């Protein structure tokens, strides 16, 4: 059979659009190694997200008047632990630094996050790998990551399913405790840190032998029911003298059901992590296949907290896919009280998205434990430079949120509401319960019922 000279070009070009062509090397990798792919960062592809929503500005003509951002102040403070604990977190911004573990990321990066939290007046989060510490001369322990957030910032510590480095000193040297159930990049998968990154320092912090693959199980081994969870939260509160906010983090699929259950556990805050949520290492099929878009879970969580009668008590923190002030403002309008940034913080600190996170070969000193690579933090200028970049970025995002609040006629970021949004796609309107632009109405009657207008 003679093949026409154009035939090869035609089929090859058509295959370029084919779903298999995009993943050709991935299939070959699995075929040659028999292994699944483990990688860092988050979902790759297009889901309904914050770009599908737009904020509605006001002009004072049958609407609110805009706030004059140059002479009127927009209040950006957010409180975690409202009226429930002796020492609530009073954040100067609705933007927080999300959980990234020490182990997945370097000591210098973790300390840069803590320093930036102090500079901005917000909270950083240890993640699930314990806290960065230092030995004192008498052989004691200095809880360095906590100290670096002071005097203006806060440190939230995670109490996750691996319980790495969790001891009473860890809980006492914190400002809030987050019981981690899941994260957006791999909900239902627990946590993973490959042995390559478990150096002597990380082994010490986590209390495990050097080089050990560190697996955080898919569920807490000491919590089998809501009743158990209630007990554990009560015990944590007891250990820290009923002073600090205690909350739960989920990467929810059944957002309403799971948040409603969590709301029964006497919590001060609830963090929900949607798709686009990042990770240092996760099976790729989990990153791509599990979880729901952030814009879909915020309204569900907000509703669940309202239905449970704890909306005023519980601060709702959203994670997963935030890049700028517009994304943050849209999340607040959907129902969140604050957001926590993760991937964007790494990028602010110099991440170039090379994809080496899981291997420990991060060339910019963030996702590595290699002593030489760690020197690259802050472009080689050290953790102070990385902290400055993170703080600058967070200051800028906070200003953006405040400006957008003003344009929507709000004197406080806490005044954002769903009516401030319009969806520009049917999908976003349907899953986020936002009126569709142009028709100014919900595309699904259920949302009209829920929103009540």
């Amino acid at each position, binding site marked *: 059979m003679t093949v026409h000279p154009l035939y090869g070009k035609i089929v090859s070009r058509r295959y370029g659009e084919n779903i298999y062509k995009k993943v050709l090397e991935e299939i070959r990798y699995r075929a040659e190694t028999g292994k699944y792919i*483990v990688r860092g960062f988050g979902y790759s592809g297009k889901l309904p997200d914050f770009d599908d929503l737009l904020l509605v500005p006001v002009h004072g003509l049958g609407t609110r008047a805009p706030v004059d951002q140059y002479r009127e102040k927009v209040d950006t403070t957010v409180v975690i632990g409202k009226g429930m604990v002796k020492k609530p977190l009073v954040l100067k911004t609705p933007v927080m630094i999300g959980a990234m573990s020490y182990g997945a990321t370097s000591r210098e990066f973790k300390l840069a996050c803590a320093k930036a939290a102090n500079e901005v007046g917000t909270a950083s989060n240890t993640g699930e790998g314990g806290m960065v510490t230092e030995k004192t001369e008498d*052989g*004691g*322990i200095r809880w360095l990551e906590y100290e670096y957030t002071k005097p203006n910032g806060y440190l939230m510590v995670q109490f996750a399913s*691996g*319980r790495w*480095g*969790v*001891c*009473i*000193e*860890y*809980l006492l040297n914190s400002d809030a405790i987050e019981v981690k159930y899941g994260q957006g990049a791999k909900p239902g998968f627990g946590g*993973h840190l*490959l*042995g390559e990154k478990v150096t002597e320092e990380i082994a010490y912090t986590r*209390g*495990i*032998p050097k*080089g*050990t*693959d560190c*697996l955080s*199980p898919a569920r807490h*081994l*000491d919590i089998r029911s809501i009743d*158990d969870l209630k*007990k*554990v939260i*009560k*015990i944590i509160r*007891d*250990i820290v003298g*009923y002073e600090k906010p205690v909350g739960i983090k989920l990467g929810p699929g059944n957002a309403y059901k799971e948040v409603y259950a969590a709301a029964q556990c006497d919590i001060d805050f609830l963090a929900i992590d949607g798709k686009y949520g990042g990770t240092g290492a996760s099976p790729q099929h989990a990153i791509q296949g599990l979880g729901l878009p952030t814009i879909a879970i915020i309204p569900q969580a907000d509703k669940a907290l309202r239905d449970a009668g704890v909306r005023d008590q519980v601060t709702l923190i959203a994670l997963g896919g935030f890049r700028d002030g517009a994304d943050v403002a849209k999340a607040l309008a959907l129902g969140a009280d604050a957001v926590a940034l993760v991937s964007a913080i790494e990028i602010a600190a110099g991440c170039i998205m090379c994809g080496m996170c899981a291997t420990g070969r991060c060339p910019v000193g963030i996702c590595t434990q290699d002593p030489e690579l760690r020197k690259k933090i802050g472009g080689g200028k050290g953790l102070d430079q990385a902290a400055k970049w993170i703080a600058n970025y967070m200051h800028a995002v906070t200003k953006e949120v405040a400006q957008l609040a003003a344009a929507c006629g709000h004197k406080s970021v806490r005044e954002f509401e769903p009516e401030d949004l319009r969806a520009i796609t049917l999908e976003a309107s349907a899953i986020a319960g936002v009126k569709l632009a142009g028709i100014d109405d919900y595309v699904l009657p259920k949302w009209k019922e829920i929103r009540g207008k």
Partner: protein
Amino acid sequence: MASVTVIDARNLTIKEVNAKIRAMVAKGLKVRVINAEAIYGLAAGLDKGEVIVEGSVGDYAAMLIGRREQKEKGLPGPRIEIHGDAGNYLADGAWAGEVIVNGSAGYGACTYAYGGTIVIRGDAGDGLGRLLKGATVIVDGSVGDLVGLYMVGGTIIITGNAGELLGNWMIRGEIFVGGTYKSLGNNAKEVELTDEDRKKLEELLKKYGVTADVSKFKKIVPIKLRPFYG
């Protein structure tokens, strides 16, 4: 010798009981607790002192006791003795000290425990020592299934029998069984005891007054150090 003070836990909350225990311990008093069956989290986070419980206790007794610094410096932690049964998750996440149960323990005893010694003079339920990280656990009796799941360190000694999937996915640490076990878990294998093992067993059992024939013990260890991804 410290004088003894009694706390009647009947009708008290965890907050009230633990506050009383901490206050008494801070004064250097030895604490005796009665009627603590309904109290969960009894003595949680305690880092010093001696607490004796007359009767059984609820779930999460002695959770997170001891300090990391005590473990690292080899300093003594608190001592908690229970004259009765313990509920689920006894000594969960403990770091230092001693917990002695003169009775049986429920589900998931010593989960996540980094340090200290926990002695159960009776049987223990399923899931003992899961993700154990460094504590020493002695059960003078039999245990249920899935003992030592995901264990990364520490020692579990069982004088009686063990159930299914013993040492499932363990990657470090050691389990000694004086009786029989129904099955081994993934990545667990039985090996011969060394002289050092026998000596260690004899010393530990003697220290805590446990009588058992060391020559009959089997030792369970991990097959591979990196079974998950390596």
